[in-house]
């Protein structure tokens, strides 16, 4: 069965790749391109959160905190120390990853809704710090003038990242790397251990899996990737302020993960793209926009508990996973 499907899958991949590369030519208006770049940033955020929520089964409402910390870290480092984006991007990831590790060690003893609430508090706390640690973060005024990535030469090709289209291609590369990285993790022993934790933590423990280690690792990687997304965002928008990284944003990312389908790699991307584009479409509806958006989400979550991608998979593969009971 899988052998027969291969050429068809390959064809799909080529078509999707061509479409993705062609987008800046088809939608050359800056407004559209901006939505696509934001979709890429949200794709990374949703993918990274899905490692924790979908794959390891630990609900976090603190994702925007890591996203924001990455943005602030990279912006401050590049403005204060004059470092290039190509350096501060990685420093932001490393820094946020370290924070995520420490927070993870602290909070992952907790489970279920207690964990969700605790991470939500953490998110609020980080926003408070952004607003009040004025000498460093400039408080509610935010940080302006975050520079674009410096020009660079690669294999003799000189390149700059300044236009929306250039950011779009850089973002595409970013998403592709994240997908590849997560795919490698999820298909390894580490990934097996994470699934075992999600499905039955006690049983995982009993076969000798260090479940705390698995959870902390998922939390750390997830946080570090959100930090990288934050760095990308800061140098793309050139301005950051605390209002972007509130608990609302955490919920927004979580909804993307649930909406798209959590325990696959494609689901979160689909969720991120749909839920970035959909609200823009709804602008036409004016005041009613948020109401329609809310209702659409509720309907989707009730009718498609496995997310859009899970539902598509079930339709495409008639002999899908059997219903489980108990």
């Amino acid at each position, binding site marked *: 069965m899988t052998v027969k499907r291969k050429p068809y899958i390959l064809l799909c991949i080529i078509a999707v790749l061509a479409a993705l590369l062609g987008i800046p030519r088809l939608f050359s208006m800056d407004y559209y391109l901006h939505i696509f770049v934001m979709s890429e940033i949200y794709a990374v955020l949703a993918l990274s959160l899905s490692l924790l929520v979908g794959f390891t089964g630990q609900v976090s409402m603190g994702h925007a905190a890591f996203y924001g910390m990455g943005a602030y870290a990279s912006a401050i480092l590049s403005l204060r120390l004059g470092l290039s984006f190509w350096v501060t991007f990685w420093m932001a990831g490393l820094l946020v990853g370290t924070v995520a590790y420490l927070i993870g060690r602290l909070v992952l003893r907790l489970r279920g809704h207690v964990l969700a609430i605790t991470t939500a508090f953490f998110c609020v706390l980080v926003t408070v710090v952004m607003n009040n640690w004025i000498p460093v973060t400039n408080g509610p005024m935010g940080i302006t003038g975050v520079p674009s990535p410096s020009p660079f030469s690669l294999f003799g090709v000189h390149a700059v990242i300044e236009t929306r289209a250039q950011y779009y291609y850089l973002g595409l590369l970013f998403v592709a790397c994240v997908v590849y990285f997560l795919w490698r993790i999820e298909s390894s022993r580490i990934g097996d251990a994470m699934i075992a934790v999600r499905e039955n933590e006690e*049983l995982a423990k*009993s*076969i*000798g899996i260090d479940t705390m280690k698995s959870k902390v690792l998922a939390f750390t990687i997830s946080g570090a990737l959100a930090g990288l997304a934050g760095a990308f965002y800061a140098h793309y928008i050139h301005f950051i302020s605390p209002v972007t990284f509130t608990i609302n944003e955490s919920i927004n990312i979580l909804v993307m993960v649930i909406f798209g389908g959590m325990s696959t790699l494609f689901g979160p991307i689909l969720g991120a793209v749909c839920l970035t584009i959909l609200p823009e479409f709804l602008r036409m509806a004016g005041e009613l926009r948020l109401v329609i958006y809310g209702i659409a989400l509720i309907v989707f979550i009730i009718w498609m508990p496995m997310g859009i991608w899970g539902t598509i998979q079930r339709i495409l593969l008639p002999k899908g996973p059997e219903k*489980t009971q108990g």
Partner: protein
Amino acid sequence: MFLKVDNLTAHYGRVKALDNVSMEAPKGSIVSLIGANGAGKSSFMMCLSGVLRPTSGTIEFDGQRIESAWPEQIVSLGLSQCPEGRRVWPKMTVLENLEMGAFSVREPRVVGERLERAFSLFPILKERQWQLAGSLSGGEQQMLAIARALMAGPKLLMLDEPSLGLAPIIVEKVMEVIKDIRAAGTTVILVEQNAFMALSIADHAYVLETGKVVLSGKASELLQNDDVRKSYLGI
């Protein structure tokens, strides 16, 4: 002695679950631990596998002290358990469950051999290997749980209430399997409320009441013991 537990005491917060429990199991034997609900049987198993830290006492397994070892170290020393309750990963296939059981084993060749052995011990699992574990019947899930525990290649296998919730005919099948496992050289510790089942296949047995060992001896003798007959066999 292959397994020797001395004066094991364990608490959950301030609740004492085990109170100075001592027991031993010779290599190649089946040893049963019987007792009513809440007697501390599961807690005892959790201590052996390193999931629950004892407050005091020692555990010696195959010449090594393990009372303060980590669960993953204990598994790789050759002590594997089949905990009570939800015994499988319901959304994984039968095959994935079995492979997961060999998590501590790094050589694919060994995993392959053990898989062969599990399938020959439980032909039904071979037929159902692509099915989700959650869709198996209760008896099949129990077989899968035992097979999964064997995938770690244990020298000592601990089973927590394998007969719970199974029809009598299936319980008999589980008993046959346990005998086969012992015949293949694995020592078995069997924790049961079903005292009749546990005593009829064990060599030695211990009776646990509110965390204390109140009676122990040869299983065949305990089967004849008046107190045991009255309290645990309902005769």
